[in-house]
């Protein structure tokens, strides 16, 4: 009976999970997008509701209607019109990366619009406060608060409503038809444009509703908590196989109940309980992904009419003359040399520090090249693996007193070992499922392992001294820069060799045709495990360097899982296979916000030094908030990821290719004029075909 009471206590939480999970399932069912940005959309509605209720003191109904029924669907409509309508036939990976970009950008846009101050005690979407003041005034043993009642009621209404929509109405049927095959649906007279808009508006309303309802669970409103809660709810989504709304609902309730029962029955204060309680949803998510039957046979939604389209025109491939490669190498060397000289002689401590951090991040980014770019696996746990490298380095050095450089190697090995253990079950999953499993791992690591003192050293991060390597004392940042350059170059060489060698060719084959790769005898799982392991080792290397850089191995400062998501968005949008993209995005991540910061500080500085500056400058200076730089930078990072669908090879890669091609064309044109070379000389049949 005690157990039953615990179970009942879990139902309200279960409803929270269920509501978020059902919202995700709805989006997936009606748009084919596994929409991580759901949390961002929820956040916007929650902010609007907060501002209307608390700042403008609107009545509850009006605030609810505006935030959930007007603002939310407008956002959905906007996303559909400017973004997702163009992605309908894109792969699930492109859609996922796009939603990742939105997840990063939307909350920051909301902060720019509504201000980034802390919003304490989000108001509930209900009039009464607690059941004991309302229903059972005397001697209530089991008390629900307003938020819980509202959530339970809304969840029930939503679930019943959606089941009715999909079972019994025409619109529901048409929504599913449009996802399965927009063209087939249109042939049978469905206006897929309008149905798709309706679907996005509906799912956005659910996001808004969830955001407003869930917000009071937290002491203050912030997008990270919402997203973490969303990831917890993913367990229910996966329980429902990403498509079944009733099963998802059931999964959410079960998850809440399980959590409550464990919390009630496990001994309090044991390590197990403390670790398990917050991490249970992630553990469940991870296990479900690995073991839920039928999950892997749910194929990616593919348009059966896709092959009806004329095949895309064969890419015009120009044979690049050898001088291009030589030129590019010379250019790269000169640029790197100039950058180094500037860093050495010009940069002050602050900028030099940022450049070093950026270069170290590019090492971590190179691990993403191996796993995402070469392996085709969207790993969302590289930050956790980097943290493992850093912790291992710190622990080994502290425990044994070996030189830091030896600790660095140990960190790489341990991170690679953890990566290998994780990879064995995970590489069997495809696409979205692998991304979710690695995300679950990142959160398990954060909630179970990071608090343990044998992992992170406990509350106070373990400090890591800068080593002395040969004649160089690396506590001088300029010598440390040299050390980091050597490390980054070595990593880059290894990655390039792997990419161009047998490993890279096998992975390339697997990525573009799994069945064909198997048909020539390539062992796919093994190749993927190897790639994942190497990437984990490289991430551990980057993490170890980060610890040396900062002088400590700190999870909060360097490796929160959300930062890892930003890294993925950045690298993938710059070019997931390109070393150049890894270096640029690593530097960009640190230097760009700092530059913006300086830029935004200009008006203020100017006013300070010129007391009689015009008043409009002063008002600009007053308007600028210190968080703007970070917000603008993250918005741009997010928008970068959104362009991924258009340039899957990455913007930097696309830009480079375009400029090189233009250069080659120009040089060839000039040579042609001078030498009167015969048309098409030296070019394979068709290869020189004129480009429009």
């Amino acid at each position, binding site marked *: 009976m005690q157990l039953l009471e615990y179970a009942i206590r879990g139902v309200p939480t279960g409803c929270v999970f269920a509501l978020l999970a059902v919202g995700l399932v709805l989006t997936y069912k009606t748009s084919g997008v596994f929409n991580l940005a759901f949390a961002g959309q929820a956040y916007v509605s929650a902010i609007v509701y907060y501002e209307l209720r608390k700042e403008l003191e609107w009545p509850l109904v009006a605030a609810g209607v505006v935030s959930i029924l007007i603002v939310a669907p407008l956002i959905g409509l906007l996303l559909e019109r400017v973004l997702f309508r163009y992605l309908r036939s894109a792969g699930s990976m492109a859609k996922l990366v796009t939603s990742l970009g939105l997840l990063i950008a939307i909350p920051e846009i909301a902060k720019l619009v509504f201000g980034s101050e802390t919003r304490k005690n989000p108001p509930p979407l209900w009039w009464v406060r607690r059941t004991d003041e309302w229903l059972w005034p005397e001697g209530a043993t089991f008390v629900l608060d307003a938020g819980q009642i509202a959530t339970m009621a809304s969840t029930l209404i939503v679930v019943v409503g959606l089941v009715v929509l999909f079972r019994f109405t025409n619109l529901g049927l048409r929504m599913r038809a449009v996802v399965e095959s927009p063209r087939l649906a249109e042939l049978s007279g469905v206006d897929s444009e309008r149905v798709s808009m309706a679907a996005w508006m509906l799912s956005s309303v659910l996001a808004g509703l969830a955001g407003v309802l869930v917000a009071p669970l937290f002491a203050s409103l912030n997008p990270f908590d919402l997203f973490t809660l969303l990831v917890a709810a993913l367990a229910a989504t996966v329980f429902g196989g990403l498509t079944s709304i009733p099963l998802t609902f059931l999964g959410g309730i079960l998850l809440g109940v399980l959590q409550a029962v464990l919390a009630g029955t496990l001994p309090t204060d044991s390590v197990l309980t403390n670790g398990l309680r917050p991490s249970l949803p992630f553990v469940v998510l991870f296990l479900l992904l690995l073991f839920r039957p039928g999950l892997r046979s749910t194929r990616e939604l593919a348009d059966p009419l896709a092959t009806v389209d004329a095949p895309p025109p064969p890419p015009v491939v120009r044979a690049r003359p050898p001088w291009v490669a030589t030129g590019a190498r010379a250019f790269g060397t000169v640029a790197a040399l100039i950058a180094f000289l500037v860093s050495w002689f010009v940069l002050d401590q602050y900028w030099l520090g940022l450049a070093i951090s950026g270069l170290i991040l590019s090492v971590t980014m190179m691990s993403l090249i191996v796993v995402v770019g070469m392996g085709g696996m969207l790993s969302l746990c590289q930050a956790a693996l980097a943290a493992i490298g850093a912790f291992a380095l710190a622990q080994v050095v502290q425990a044994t007193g070996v030189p830091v450089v030896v600790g660095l190697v140990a960190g790489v090995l341990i991170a690679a070992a953890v990566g290998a253990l994780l990879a064995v079950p995970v590489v069997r999953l495809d696409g979205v499922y692998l991304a979710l499993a690695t995300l679950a791992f990142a959160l398990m690591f954060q909630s179970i392992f990071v608090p343990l003192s044998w992992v992170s050293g406990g509350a106070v991060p373990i400090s890591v001294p800068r080593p002395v390597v040969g004649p160089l004392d690396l506590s001088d940042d300029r010598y440390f820069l040299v050390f980091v350059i050597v490390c980054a170059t070595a990593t880059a060489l290894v990655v390039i060799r792997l990419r161009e060698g047998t490993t890279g060719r096998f992975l390339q084959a697997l990525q573009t045709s799994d069945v064909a790769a*198997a048909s020539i005898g390539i062992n796919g799982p093994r190749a993927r495990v190897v790639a994942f392991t190497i990437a984990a080792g490289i991430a551990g290397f980057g993490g170890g360097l980060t610890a040396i850089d900062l002088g400590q191995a700190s999870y909060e400062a360097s490796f929160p899982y959300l930062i890892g998501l930003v890294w993925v968005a950045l690298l993938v949008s710059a070019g997931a296979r390109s070393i150049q993209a890894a270096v640029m995005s690593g530097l960009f991540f640190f230097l760009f916000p700092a530059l913006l910061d300086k830029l935004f500080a200009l008006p203020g500085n100017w006013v300070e030094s010129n007391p009689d500056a015009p008043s409009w400058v002063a008002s600009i200076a007053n308007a600028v908030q210190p968080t703007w730089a970070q917000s603008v930078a993250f918005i741009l990072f997010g928008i970068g990821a959104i362009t991924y669908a258009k340039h899957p090879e990455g913007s930097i890669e696309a830009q480079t290719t375009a400029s090189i091609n233009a250069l080659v064309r120009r040089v060839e044109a000039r040579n042609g004029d001078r030498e009167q070379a015969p048309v098409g000389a030296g070019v394979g049949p068709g290869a020189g075909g004129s480009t429009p």
Partner: protein
Amino acid sequence: MSDALLSASGVTKRYAGIVALQAVSLEVRAGEFAAVIGPNGAGKSTLFDCLTGVQRPDRGQVVFDGRPVDSLKPAARARAGMARTFQRIELFGGMTVLDHLLVADRARTRRGGLLADVLTGSHPSPEELARCAAVLELLGLEQWADRPAESLTLGKGRLVELARALMCEPKLLFLDEPSSGLDRHETDEMGNALQRVQHERGIAVLLIEHDVPLVERLAERISVLDYGELIASGPTEEVLSDQKVRIAYLGATT
């Protein structure tokens, strides 16, 4: 039984509701050119998938080269000597024709690997290039070697698939409708290529084909599938003149 290179017995495969294959038994002898024909949806591709391990049959055994391969994954069966092409062409993205052959050769010889990649860069050796050149020449693909495979016509693409399969030095080659989507000229070219392969390499071939003249020209033996069942099997002329086959497959009425 003993001289069969491939012997499948009682292979049954169901997909939610429909029976794609019903207790199909089939043999291919070493060096033989055999064909499977049958109308669309008869289960021919499913049969290939079951034999090469892409699909797991619900019932039935497959013995290849003297040992049961039922528990082997497609990659392991490939290394045991099965190679195949696909009805819907499956080329690797971002690779030249030569890369396709090299990668298949590496998969077979298992040369290279992590350490070799990092230490030496694993550039193609002269022997590897020679093996690739031989296959390219056999199929008349030399001049396309450095072209990205995606940029080729369907006919050339199918030849690249064939070349890639040959690089595995298979004992048995499964070809799933190599002429589908090709015009008359390309079909002839494919037929010639297959004949050359058969003559010069002596590999056993199991061919799925719609084009009856092509089958008549190439195959020594034919098996006929209809609605998942094997309705006839035997020497080519015999089977093609069989009344049952003519009704099921060629649409003959009398």
